[in-house]
């Protein structure tokens, strides 16, 4: 194979400022983490709210949450991203539109779009997990809480949600990992996250295989370490008495 392997390429100067290629990867990883974490906060908050709505007896509210889930689950992520980035700003009131298009730096406006996009996209999935978690609890829990005189809000806050969240940590973990992987679509609207930096390195240095191997390793390590952390948390908060609880 007439390919010139050179793993030292990452320490070489990029020719732009006094950066080396490794700096690009570090900056890219920073954006990836920033997108994923911010998106996750949106997803967790909105997804929990929607999940609760789906379990309410009120038909309108649960129907609304169901419609949300179906809409956001059946449109490809990339299409959603393009809608948030290219279409929605044009529909905003003029001062907001000008702010988004002119005042914000390109990186900031791309960042905002992708965070909103991933947050709302992942919220639909979180919603389903929260709903499953609530519905998995024995009906006696709600009945007992009602008998104690708790109101609906209190029942969710103090009885159902604390247990539901502990049950659904494993599926939530995989959604949490997914949001890191999904954040790579940001490269298609010009945000210089990990994948975009990898492509740029591959093009600038002509060391395609090294660049993509490093990116793969970074994603792999990130994934594995997050998974280990989540397993720890899962063990720590397991509900005693359930099969998953162990004792």
């Amino acid at each position, binding site marked *: 194979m007439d*390919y010139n392997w050179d793993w030292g390429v990452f320490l070489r100067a990029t020719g732009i400022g006094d950066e080396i290629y490794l700096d690009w990867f570090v900056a890219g990883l920073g954006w990836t983490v920033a997108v994923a974490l911010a998106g996750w906060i949106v997803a967790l908050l909105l997804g929990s709210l929607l999940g609760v709505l789906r379990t309410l007896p009120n038909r309108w509210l649960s129907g609304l949450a169901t419609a949300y889930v179906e809409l956001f*689950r059946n*449109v*490809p992520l990339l*299409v959603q991203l393009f809608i948030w980035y290219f279409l929605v700003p044009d529909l905003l009131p003029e001062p907001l539109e000008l702010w988004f298009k002119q005042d914000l730096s390109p990186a900031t406006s791309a960042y905002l779009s992708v965070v909103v996009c991933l947050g709302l996209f992942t919220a639909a999935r979180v919603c389903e997990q929260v709903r499953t978690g609530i519905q998995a609890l024995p009906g006696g829990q709600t009945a007992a809480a009602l008998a104690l005189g708790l109101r609906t809000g209190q029942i969710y806050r103090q009885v159902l949600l604390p247990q539901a969240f502990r049950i659904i940590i494993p599926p939530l973990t995989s959604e949490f990992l997914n949001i890191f992987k999904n954040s*790579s*679509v940001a*490269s298609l609207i010009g945000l210089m996250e990990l994948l975009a930096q990898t492509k740029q390195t591959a093009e600038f240095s002509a060391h*395609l295989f090294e660049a993509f191997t490093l990116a793969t390793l970074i994603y792999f390590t990130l*994934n594995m370490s997050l998974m280990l952390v989540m397993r720890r948390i899962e063990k720590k908060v397991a509900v005693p008495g359930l099969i998953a609880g162990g004792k």
Partner: protein
Amino acid sequence: MDFSSIPAALPALWEGMQTTLLLLVLGVLGGVLLGTLLAMLRLSHNPLLAGIAATYVNYFRSIPLLLVITWFYFAVPFVLRWITGEDTPVGAFASCLVAFVMFEAAYFCEIVRAGIQSIPRGQMSAAQALGMTYGQSMRLIILPQAFRKMTPLLLQQSIILFQDTSLVYSVGLMDFLNAARSRGDIVGQPHEFLLVAGLVYFIVSFAASQLVKRLQKRLTP
């Protein structure tokens, strides 16, 4: 919003959709085939084979699909030249297909593995008591039952793949999304074409997932 130029663009959109569907069908077929092979390796008693398959699955499940698509787009021509020793032009379609098959196989493997494991052990013992070899009992007894159980999950994964095919936009393959985007740019109505594309994806995925739900109900008494 002005949707008047959509009808004239329908042939171009349909052409894009055909690329999307071809990618989907070939991707699912290849993915299920490779995934089944991986699942059988993972379940084999040979620790080396099981380890290789497990590593493959964990590896592909921890990296983004978009990374795989991008990488293969650049790498497949390189690797081919290395193998065949001559320049063979590879289109975006072929490299995307290879990416989808290899990536989806990791996900299909887990579905197939769970399906095989859900078959009672007695089935395997009975098959072997009848004198069947391991391969025969897998092919004739275990897999047919497992696949019937897995059908809803396999279809669900295929719906996800249908949506994920839109990622080939990144390497410029003219799939449905790309066709809609470029038509929209040509006629100066990018927003309308984007919305129509989203609507079509929604209708197809929504209808398909409703059908799968119904099938699931029928298969689980």
